[in-house]
Structure formats: structure tokens, C-alpha cells
């Protein structure tokens, strides 16, 4: 009984505030920038509600309650007070606060740099640790250390995209021919969801990614594992992968597959999502993705492999999943 009640209350709250939760919400903030901006929003929201009620209340008052015949002096004072003094004072204060947090939110990061490139419709993610010879290449998932500001460089393939993880901080556009930059300072470990925020064509809405925030030590261990080549199993799955020419587009370090057109698959199996944040990393989803990617993500460049039999698809998916 109590359980049922609790569930009912929970459902009620969820239905009311459904938009304010979840890994892609601004309100489930786990980054220093997002937390600061939520504070700014709360103050602005309260101010806006007060101003809205006062202004519309004043209008109601002068048209319904006390209609007219007030002194001209008072009326002119309303114009100067409401139209000039009030906005000057309120907006000066708001600008001073709002703009003062801008440099902090774009402060340069320490140590690690991450380069993210927006492709159609997935993310190329390269980690550039301090002093490393080359980048550690990954895709469609971003991992960041908690408690430290990380520099993020943004580039774009063919069209404009925008990189945004609402729980961690604001967005910055990715523009072909330019390198834009931003930085993020996650504070709470956990998984946050990012989404492309600039219309980029047919599958714009299906271009997401998980941002996994790890403790400093966990992150260092993860990055070391990510930098290592894959340990692919032998077997039929591997044979199918090379027979179908998957290596022309995808790289699996430690094998002859070295294509750079599609996402790097070296540690594919250890990712938390499939197809740029839109499918769970599960066998069934992977099979249907390989069979016909375009049916799931319209106009995706990956060709359909519907000619493979069910068992072949299953073997291939199993082999890919084992790339941890």
C-alpha cells in the first residue's frame, strides 16, 4: 500500500517535472559552469516573475481599479522611473554579474586537451594528454576527469554543428574551416548526455553523445586503456568484418583496419551507447544498426549490410562487442 502511494506520488512529480530531470537536463547539473548558470537563471527567473506581475498588475490597476484622473506629474514620474531608472539599475547589476562569469567559463584548461570534430552525424573525439606524442582517437563518447578544467577544441567536417552537454556547461559551435574552443569543469562523476545544438541536416536530432565524468584516478586508468591497441578475438566475426570491407571506413588499432571516414572502433565494446548516443550498446540494436544504418539514422553514410545472414550479423556484432 505504502509502496503504491509512493509510486503514485513519484509519478505525479515526474509528470510535472519530467522535463527537469534526466541526463540531458540543464537542471541535473554536474559541471561548475552549469551550476553557476543555474544560479544565474534562478535569480533572473525570480526577478522576471516579480517584474511581470508588477507591470501587468500596474496595467490592471490603472485600467480596472483606479481608472484615471491621476496627476500628470505622477504619470511622468512613471515614465522616467519605469522606463529609464528601473532598467538602468536592474540591467547594470545584471550585466555586471552575468558578464563577470563569462571569463571563468571560458578559462583555459589544465593538462589534457580534447579535440572534438562534428561529423555527419557523429563525433570524432581525440584526447591530447600533456606531453603525449599523438592523439588518442575515439568516437561518440566523451570522458572527462572530475575536479579539473579540461580544454576542448572544436572542429567540424562538412557542415556546422554545435557541441553541448547541458549538465556540464554551455555550448559552442563547430564551424568548418575554424577551430573554436571552450572548456568544461565537471565536478560530479556520472553520465551526462550531450546533443548537437545546431541544425546540421537530416539526422541532426540523432546526433548525441554520452559524456562520462570519472574521478581523476579512474580517468587516468581509462585513458591508458583507451590509448592501447585493441585485443581483437579471432573467429568468424573478424573474418566477416574484413571480408565486407568495414576497415575501409573504420579503424581498429592493432588490426589492418585503418579507415578514417567513420568512427574509430578500437574500444567500441566499452562505450555506453551506439550510433552517437541514440541506441543502447546491446546485441539486438547493433545487429539492426549494421543491417541498415540508414533506416535508423536517415541519410547516414554507412551502407546497409542487409545481405548478411542473421547468424553472420550476430557473429559480427558479437565480435565488435568484444572490442573492449
Amino acid at each position, binding site marked *: 500500500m505504502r509502496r503504491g502511494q509512493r509510486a503514485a506520488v513519484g509519478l505525479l512529480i515526474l509528470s510535472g517535472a519530467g522535463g527537469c530531470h534526466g541526463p540531458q537536463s540543464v537542471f541535473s547539473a554536474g559541471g561548475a559552469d552549469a551550476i553557476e548558470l543555474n544560479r*544565474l*537563471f534562478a535569480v*533572473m*527567473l525570480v526577478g*522576471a516573475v516579480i*517584474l*511581470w506581475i508588477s*507591470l*501587468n498588475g500596474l*496595467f*490592471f490597476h*490603472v*485600467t480596472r481599479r483606479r481608472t*484615471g*484622473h*491621476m*496627476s*500628470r506629474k*505622477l*504619470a*511622468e514620474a*512613471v*515614465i522616467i*522611473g*519605469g*522606463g*529609464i531608472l*528601473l*532598467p538602468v539599475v536592474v*540591467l547594470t547589476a*545584471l*550585466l555586471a554579474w*552575468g*558578464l563577470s562569469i*563569462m571569463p571563468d*567559463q*571560458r578559462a583555459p584548461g589544465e593538462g589534457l586537451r580534447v579535440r572534438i570534430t562534428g561529423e555527419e552525424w557523429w563525433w570524432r573525439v581525440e584526447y591530447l594528454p600533456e606531453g603525449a606524442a599523438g592523439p588518442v582517437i575515439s568516437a561518440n563518447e566523451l570522458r572527462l576527469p572530475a575536479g579539473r578544467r579540461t580544454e576542448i577544441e*572544436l572542429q567540424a567536417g562538412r*557542415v*556546422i554543428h554545435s557541441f553541448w552537454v*547541458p549538465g556540464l*556547461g*554551455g*555550448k*559552442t*559551435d563547430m*564551424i*568548418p*574551416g*575554424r577551430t*573554436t574552443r571552450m572548456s568544461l569543469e565537471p565536478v560530479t562523476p556520472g553520465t551526462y548526455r550531450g546533443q548537437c*545544438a*545546431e*541544425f*546540421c*541536416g*537530416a*539526422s541532426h536530432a540523432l546526433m548525441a553523445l554520452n559524456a562520462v565524468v570519472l574521478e581523476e584516478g579512474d580517468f587516468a586508468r581509462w585513458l591508458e586503456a583507451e590509448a592501447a591497441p585493441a585485443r581483437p578475438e579471432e573467429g568468424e566475426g573478424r573474418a566477416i568484418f574484413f571480408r565486407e570491407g568495414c576497415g575501409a571506413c573504420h579503424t581498429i588499432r592493432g588490426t589492418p583496419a585503418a579507415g578514417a571516414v567513420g568512427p574509430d572502433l578500437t574500444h567500441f565494446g566499452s562505450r555506453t551507447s551506439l550510433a552517437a548516443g541514440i541506441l543502447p550498446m546491446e546485441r539486438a540494436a547493433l545487429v539492426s544498426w549494421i543491417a541498415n544504418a540508414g533506416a535508423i539514422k*536517415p*541519410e547516414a553514410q554507412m551502407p546497409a549490410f542487409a545481405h548478411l545472414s542473421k547468424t553472420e550479423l550476430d557473429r559480427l556484432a558479437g565480435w565488435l562487442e568484444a572490442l573492449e
Partner: protein
Amino acid sequence: MTRSHASDAPLPEGAFPPTEAMLSEPVPSALAEAQADRLRAVWATPKGWRYWSAVNNSEVGVWYALTALAFMLCAGVLALLMRVQLAVPDNDFLSADRFNQFFTMHGSAMMFLFAVPMFEAISIILLPALLGARDLPFPRLSAYGYWCFLIGGVFVMGSILFDAAPKSGWFMYPPLATQDEGLGSDIWLLGLSFIEVASIAAAVELIVGVLKCRPPGMRVNLMPLYAWYVLVVGGMILFAFPPLIAGDLLFEMERGFDWPFFDPERGGDPLLWQHLFWIFGHPEVYIIFLPSIALAAMIVPTAARQPIVGYSWIVLSAVGTGFLSFGLWVHHMFTTGLPALSLGFFSAASEAVVIPTGIQLFAFVATLMVGRVKMILPMLWIAGGLAVFTAGGLTGVMVAIAPFDWQVHDTYFIVPTCITRSLAAWSFRSSRGSITSIPSSPRRPCPSGWGAGPSGCCSPAST
């Protein structure tokens, strides 16, 4: 020609200036009647199929308004279809391609085929009457503008029936839009160029109308506020549309002749388009909004039974808003990675617009305070419009703060900010539809029951 004609004419004779006695001499009634008949014949609406050759503002203005309304209904249908698609997750009601065509056309139609033309339509209908003129100075220019608008609008809107509509967003950002393989982008550029021409024609017409068609004795500092707003908006259109036309030309040259203005691989820059588009696009917001608040500026003193308080304040604010609106366009580009100094400047400039807007709103309140308010029907629309507009305006104050915009830019936070303001504009404008007592109103008043319903449900539904 003129000179020889003048020399042929009989020399003037008699006393000049005419004396009082000469002026009061009655005109023979037959002559007066014949003159009146000739005058009526000249101004008569053409009959039959010649009706479509009419150039008078009373006909052209009505066509303009009805056509803009029809385009709005089309855009509304597109919006409803999109909402059906978005009602449940993983819906396959619309394909991705068609959805993108719909949302591009919805935005483009509301912006270019409804909001701006509707202002022009209402001004073409109202302005001569408010100025005591028979018509606008260049009736054929109005008609030309209308036919341009109709052709361009049908061309753009019709493309959706052939599955060839533009699909790169109403903002048409390159490289996505320039590299688009279909005809859509070209249709957008060519069709909307017609509409840009129509807008500029209407702007020229209205500016000259305000400046040259006033009755004797109505100096600019005495003319109705509506005429002031029309003058400001006309000036804004003249300066805002050319950058867009320039952008369109560059864009079409890239698509048609492969000149790489926006192609980064060959030395172009996609951001160039964004600057050109938004230096048009931001003034556009006020091009939509000012004509609407202009109607409020006429209705409020009527309802208050009191001349407007702070006439000069309002005129200066309208001019100030028009001027400032050209210095804000970068707030549409806060996330493009521009330097922090630019962002700070454009944040402050965006907030500064609150001051002239506030002055206008508080001048209305001041007028209501001084006068003897009668809650006529249009005042309900004004109240609803104010409620919606202040909500849109206050969220606008929030998004003008650059770091906050980094979170909400391109999200559903912006959509209502933009739509509530347009809706407020619309509802101020609707107030005109039910007005009873603007001086020289050419329309019959409508029974007050008609308009009260929508004004009541407009505000809660949209805020």
C-alpha cells in the same frame, strides 16, 4: 514638352490671390456635379476582370492582408503537422526530409510571408486615412510590391507540394544550405528575393507617404504616432534588407557559379552569411514589433480619452529602438566562438534596448493613469498582448546575457521567447481589427462580442 504646353496655355488673368468674394461665389451646380462625377470615375474600383488592375490602397491593402493571412494559415498547417510528428517518440508520420522541409518553410513563411507583409498591408490600408490623404503617393508601386509578394510567396510556398522545398532551416546557414543537393535553397533565395523587393517597395511608399502626404498644418511633430512608427520601420526596412539581398546574391553565386564565398576550403567563411543574415534578422524583430506597438499607441489614448502622455518620449524611443536594433545582431551568434569582448559589447547593447521599449510601455501606462479609461474591446487585446509581450521581453533580457545564452541558445527556451513576442505583436495588431474609434478609421466597428473571446484565450494559451 512641359514648356511648350505652358506657353500654349492662356495667360492667367484677374486678381491674385483671389478675393474672399471670388471664393464664396457659388460654383454652378451642373459643373460641380460633373467634376464630382469625373473624380469618382477616376477613383472608382475597376469592374470585372479589370478589378485585378486596381492600384488604390483600399484594394491593394486588402489583397496584401488576405494573402499574408493565407500564407500564415499554410504555415500554421505545417506547424500542426510537425506537432503531430513530435507528439510521440519514434513517430514515422513524417520522414526526416519532409520534416526538415516543413520546419524550414514554417519559419520562412511566418517571417517573410506573414509578419512583414502583414505590417505593410495594414499600413497601406490605414496610413492614407490617418493622414487624411486619398491614397499613398505611388499607388502603382504598392500594386507592384503586392504582385511581387504574391509571385514570390506562391513560388516558395508551392515548392512544398513538389517535395522540393528548402530544408536547411529558415536561417539557411552555409555550408549545409549551399551544399544542399536539391533545388530547395535556390527556390528559397529566388522566391524570397521577390519578397525583399516587395518589402523595399512598400518601405519607400510608406516613407514618402508619411513625409509628403500629410494634410496642410500637420507638421511631423503633430502627426499621429502610427505615422511615426511607420516612418521608423520603413527606414529600418531600407537598411536591413540590403544586407540580406547582398547575402542572397553571394549565396546564389556560390550555388550557381561556384564562387566560394562561404566555402572554407577555398578561402570563404560560413560565418560571413551569419553576419549578413542577422544584421537583417535582428532589425527584423523590431520591424515586426514596432508596427504592432504603433497600433497600441493609437488605441491607448482613445481608450483613455486623453491625448498621449509623453509624445516626444515615444517618438524618441521608437527612433532609438530602430537605431539600436542594428547594433545587436551578434546576440544571435553568441555561441560561434567570437571574442569575449565582442560578446560583452553586444550583451550590453541588447540589454540597452529595454530602455526605449520600457519608455514606450510606461508612456502608455501614464496615459491611462491621467485619462478616464473606458475598457473598450481593443483594450482587452492590449492587456493580453502586454502579458505575452512582457513574458517574451523578460526572457529576452535573460538570453541577452551571453553566458546564459550559451546554455539556452537554439533550444526550446528561445522558441517561446521569439514566438511570444511575435504573438504579442500579432495580438496588438488584432486589437486593430476590433477597434471602434480610431479617428478616420475606414472600417466599420465590429460588434464587441466578436473579439473578446480570442483575446481572453490568447494570453494563457501562449504564456
